[in-house]
């Protein structure tokens, strides 16, 4: 198993390097000059050149990449072109806010999706199953940014129960919950659909295997059969949970834009419109790195649960 763990860790290194190359390349994908775009219109050519040198934009690309990578490795993501603040600080605060939102929506989606999927599998063809299938299709089909707007229309505009925007400053726990409620639901819709579907099919696969028939035949109580099914379906479900959690952290841009939730997505959106390339790079690099490490953790956790994987 340790050989497998070591190999998997080594494999993550080229992926992380590739990720960093893509993130670095983004600056040069951008049309126009990233410096000229943020300089005052009346600045002279000499001033623009000086700023370029200050940011290191005048050197050859591979050198720029290595210098940048070296700084990133030391935790320096550069300075925001728009605010002059260190990017690390902005990204750190935003990341914390996004993490809270991703955790709360995961809690809702994983809990509800798990229960619905299992109910559907054990009551195949019955009303619960049909309901679960409907929720699964709606969940993966609904544009979640639109769902967010609908939630605002219903709960903020019409009923006036919950706030439509952002997170309150120094709000206290209840007020915080009121602010996070709607974005949580909007963000939970897609994973809810995906997880309901995956849990249902994973549980059905196990239920149809011979050993479950044997367990039932020997008269094992339904509750104990249930435990066996859940245990055997767990590795497959765990992978999907890990992926979905990563998607919620990295994919919350649209929901954060709808609710003005001050997370990484909101920061990214802001950076795009201010053409603030260091912030853009910083946010994407941090999220992608987190995503790669999360996948790694899930893979390793899987081998612990199911040793057969390491032997393949």
């Amino acid at each position, binding site marked *: 198993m340790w050989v497998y763990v070591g190999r998997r860790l080594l494999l993550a290194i*080229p*992926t*992380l390097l*590739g*990720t960093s*190359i*893509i*993130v670095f390349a*983004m*600056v040069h*994908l*951008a*049309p126009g000059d990233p410096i000229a775009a943020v300089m005052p219109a009346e600045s002279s050519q000499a001033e623009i050149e000086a700023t370029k040198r200050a940011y290191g934009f005048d050197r050859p690309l591979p050198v720029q990449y290595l210098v940048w990578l070296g700084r990133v490795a030391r935790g320096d993501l550069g300075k925001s072109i728009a605010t002059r603040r260190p990017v690390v600080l902005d990204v750190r605060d935003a990341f914390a806010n996004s993490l809270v939102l991703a955790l709360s929506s995961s809690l809702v989606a994983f809990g509800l999706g798990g229960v619905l999927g299992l109910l559907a599998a054990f009551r195949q063809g019955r009303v619960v199953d049909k309901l679960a299938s409907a929720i699964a*299709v*709606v969940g*993966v*089909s*609904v*544009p*979640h*940014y*639109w*769902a967010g*707007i*609908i939630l*605002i*229309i219903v709960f903020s*505009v*019409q009923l006036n129960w919950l706030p439509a925007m952002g997170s309150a400053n120094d709000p206290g726990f209840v007020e915080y919950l009121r602010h996070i409620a709607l974005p949580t639901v909007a963000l939970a819709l897609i994973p809810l659909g995906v997880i309901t579907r995956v849990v249902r099919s994973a549980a059905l696969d196990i239920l149809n295997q011979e050993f479950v028939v044997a367990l039932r035949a020997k008269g094992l109580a339904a509750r104990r059969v249930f435990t066996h099914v859940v245990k055997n379906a767990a590795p497959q479900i765990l992978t999907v949970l890990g992926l979905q959690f*990563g*998607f919620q*952290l*990295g*994919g919350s*841009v*649209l929901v954060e*834009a*709808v609710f003005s939730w001050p997370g990484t997505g909101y920061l*990214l*959106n802001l*950076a*795009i*419109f201010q053409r603030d*390339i260091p912030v*853009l790079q910083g946010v*994407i690099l941090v*999220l*992608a790195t987190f*995503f*790669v490490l999360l996948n790694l953790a899930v893979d390793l956790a899987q081998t612990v649960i199911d040793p057969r994987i390491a032997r393949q």
Partner: protein
Amino acid sequence: MAATVALGEVPVVVAAPMSYWRTVRWRLARDRATLLAGGVLALIVLSALLAPWLAPYDPTAGSIRLRLAPVGAPGHVLGTDEQGRDMLSRLLWGGRMTLVAGLTPVLVAFVLGAGLGVLAGYLGGIANTLIMRTMDVFYAFPSVLLAIAISGALGPGLANTLLSLSIVFVPRVVRVAESATVQVKSLEYIAAARASGAGVRAIVRHHLLANVLGPILVFSSTQVSLSIILAAGLSFLGLGVTPPAAEWGLMLNTLRQSIYVNALVPALPGLAIFVTSMAFNLLSDGLRDAMEIRG
């Protein structure tokens, strides 16, 4: 071909074995949800195609005196938007944009992804490592983030949306194509074909492609709804189609501020995205079941 055989007194219908595609058609024709989804989709595509003839007004011509008319207003069945433009006309024209922006990337991904995937799977070795490890790097990004990041760096516009979404979907199709190819390649009949002297081209065309294109097609079809949601999402963020053109995501964005005045009209473009994406999902589910492809 069905023949009735008298077995005792009960007539038993014995069907001749059907060809694979006839079986698929037969199953689809009996799947009501899939037929309904297909019908809805045909209607949406047709109305988008016929928008120039169906739309009662110019989708970009507004009137300041008629802003945010409610659904059912005289002359404007679905009301008007924040600039007094007819919603029905804009939804019809917007469908064209959204469908083009959502379908093109998946089409590109299908062609490019199938090509690269089959190549990687068939050749194996260094070519496989090179292609697949490159694709893995794109997997390091959650899809929404990758699309927004590339679009954000490139700037707004339909062409950039198509490019960034294609980059999202190509690696996914490559993975499916590669694993399907590796599976089929190891089957005995390929070895038999090679032993009987079939050339590489004949094997790839007649034996490999014939068997891997089905799964690749079905997988690609499952990606359409996500592609549509993302394409509309990019314009919702202001990164896709630029105003004053009509596009569902963009309409949703510009109407967002108006939910306090009129709640129903701003919800319409999102409803259109939802219905379209759901129809695509149900259709691809039905297709997968009918073709008996797992995954």
